[in-house]
């Protein structure tokens, strides 16, 4: 694994950031309201439980079928895209992906890039790399545009500015967009964004996008969106660069309708998105618009590590709908920024360890009550709670040879392990248990008044003066 210089916040700040959000009633209200809204919209899209279950099973089968053939499909996709005139690039790390993309841009002497929504471009922190190279990288999805203006990162993979109120956005626009007066009318705010970005769509030489599905048999890149900025970025500029993780491939075009239906219904509770944009080649001779060049960057960044293990491979079934975070009691209370990773919420907790290593993400795996909501709503049936338990074991077990993951054992503590071994010994032997509980009830005065996190909001724990067995004995 190569080193890379990403700006992800290290996991040790996770507790402090979580606490800050939990203590902020406005943010709590924002997230609670937004998640309730998204949950009810999703539920309305799936009125028939049989239809939902059979479609989820079909979605799971499609993703597993395609993952099983992944290396072959990547080669088939590359061959068909190349035949169609699309240039395919491969990157193992974020640094490699940035080098490829900046190389294409600089090779054309270009300085202006408009971006459609792409979480993979967030994952590689392309905007930082572009800025450092003197290239303007402007986000054009309304939510991403707002977040970029504010100098922040997306707090949700589908609704990036979900943590902001319209009043905050109104102040941001009045402050940052030249010639704009304060208005908190949502239509007026969207028109401000539209006008700024329409000028940029005309000027930019480079359009960057993500990919929702790549179809191997036809060599087609599919993009899902509502705003039309994705179509702008992939049509108006002279060069289109798409970037995707290596897992987002299906073999057959007919795999698309069920996955697309699951995606929009699970994500935002829409029966379909406004646009489904299928791109199969650059501009052909005689055609009057569309990019002259189309590039696809295929990024690994830890995905092949997840792929190597049969259980962890299920992580790669994800179609990035965000339903798991919408239904997560932890995400709803702490919001997306607290995680410190590109992908927040349950999916972030199971995918980030492969990208960043368990050493940077061990704490995230414990930020779950294992209530199971994420697994229950996942449209492709990823067993997220099971994977969280697996990752906890990987993170907190003693380091061993040939680990399945980078950073295995990073959370291991010899003292903690010894305590648990002692606990297991006591609870595994009735005689020892009786002796220790007797001692506990006699030495209860030795228990400290301050017990770390427990006593910050609770009274101290103390063994009872009489054990349950003694109370029962007295009664008889």
């Amino acid at each position: 694994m190569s080193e890379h210089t990403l700006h992800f916040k290290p996991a040790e700040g996770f507790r402090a950031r979580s606490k800050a959000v939990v203590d902020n009633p406005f943010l709590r209200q924002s997230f609670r309201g937004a998640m309730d809204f998204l949950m009810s919209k999703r539920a309305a899209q799936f009125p028939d439980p049989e239809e939902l279950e059979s479609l989820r099973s079909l979605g799971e089968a499609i993703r597993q079928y395609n993952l099983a053939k992944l290396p072959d499909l990547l080669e088939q996709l590359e061959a068909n895209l190349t035949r169609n005139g699309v240039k395919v690039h491969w990157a193992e790390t974020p640094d490699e992906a940035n080098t490829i993309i900046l190389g294409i841009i600089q090779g054309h002497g270009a300085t202006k890039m408009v971006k459609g929504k792409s979480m993979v471009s967030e994952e590689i922190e392309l905007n930082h790399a572009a800025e450092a190279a003197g290239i303007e990288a402007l986000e054009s999805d309304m939510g991403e545009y707002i977040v970029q203006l504010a100098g922040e990162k997306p707090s949700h993979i589908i609704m990036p500015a979900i943590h902001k109120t319209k009043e905050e956005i109104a102040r941001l626009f009045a402050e940052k967009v030249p010639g704009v007066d304060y208005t908190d009318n949502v239509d007026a705010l969207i028109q401000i964004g539209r006008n700024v970005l329409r000028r940029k769509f005309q000027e930019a030489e480079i359009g960057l996008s993500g990919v929702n599905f790549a179809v191997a048999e036809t060599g087609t890149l599919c993009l899902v969106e509502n705003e039309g900025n994705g179509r702008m970025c992939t049509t108006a500029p002279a060069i289109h660069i798409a970037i995707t993780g290596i897992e987002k491939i299906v073999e057959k075009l007919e795999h698309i309708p069920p996955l697309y239906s699951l995606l929009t219904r699970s994500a935002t509770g829409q029966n379909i998105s406004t646009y489904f944009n299928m791109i199969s080649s650059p501009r052909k001779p005689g055609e009057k618009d569309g990019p002259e060049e189309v590039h696809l960057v295929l990024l690994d960044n830890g995905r092949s590590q997840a792929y190597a293990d049969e259980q962890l491979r299920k992580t790669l079934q994800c179609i990035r709908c965000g339903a798991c975070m919408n239904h997560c009691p932890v995400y709803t209370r702490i919001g997306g920024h607290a995680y410190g990773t590109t992908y927040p919420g349950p999916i972030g907790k199971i995918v980030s360890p492969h990208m960043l290593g368990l050493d940077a993400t061990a704490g995230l795996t414990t930020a779950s009550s294992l209530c199971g909501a994420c697994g229950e709503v996942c449209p492709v049936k990823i067993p997220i709670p099971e994977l969280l338990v697996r990752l906890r074991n990987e993170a907190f077990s003693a380091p061993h040879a040939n680990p399945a993951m980078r950073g295995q054992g990073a959370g291991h503590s010899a003292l903690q392990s010894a305590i648990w071994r002692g606990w297991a010994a006591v609870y595994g032997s009735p005689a020892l248990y009786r002796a220790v509980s007797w001692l506990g009830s006699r030495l209860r005065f030795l228990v400290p008044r301050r017990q770390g996190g427990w006593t910050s909001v609770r009274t101290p724990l103390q063994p009872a003066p009489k054990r349950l067995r003694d109370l029962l004995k007295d009664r008889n």
Partner: protein
Amino acid sequence: MNARDRILGKLRQHAPQTAKPLPDVGSWYATHRPLEAAAEKARRFRHFIELAHAEVHAVTAANWTETLHAVLKARAIDKLLVAEGTPHGDAALDALPPRGIECSVYDMAIEAWKSEMFNDTPAGLTAARAAIAETGTLILWPNALEPRLMSLVPPVHIVLLDSNKIYNTFFEAMSVEGWKNGLPTNSLLISGPSKTADIQQTLAYGAHGPKELIVLLQEGEA
């Protein structure tokens, strides 16, 4: 060894030994999406695309340019971008200028007139190749005569759709038309005007693409 070979090598080393069975997408649709008669499909298409804020007008082959004229007049639009060389584009070119609507044509590469397209093209007319009843969706395959930006940049997008070309589902459309055998440079599903809910989950239309989508649904004999 380059990145490509390293990635493929890692994947091949751990790929499952046995392939999984090919999922039967066709039988899911056969079981869960019964085929409907033409009138029912047209009704369903209209219901869903109207829910998505599109405006639908029933027209005939004989009167659709009159409806088109009325739609433009109602919005005080006096200029329309049309696709010269297509039957509908030529019909509009014949019918509209005498009634006071200027028709512009997409007769050169976008680089030569980008500013006019973005700043002085209030409406565009295209045909739809087909449509999907299940979700109220138009299918467009832009081409050299009717390029991609026509359905995206003008603030009002007017679409002529033959009601005989409505499929039950996206799956049916791609299967019947054999899309797997070859797709054009760009193909599109469009299910309403451009929209966003990125500010406090409040729905707003006209984010980056058309603010209005108007469907001229041409009914008539098959």
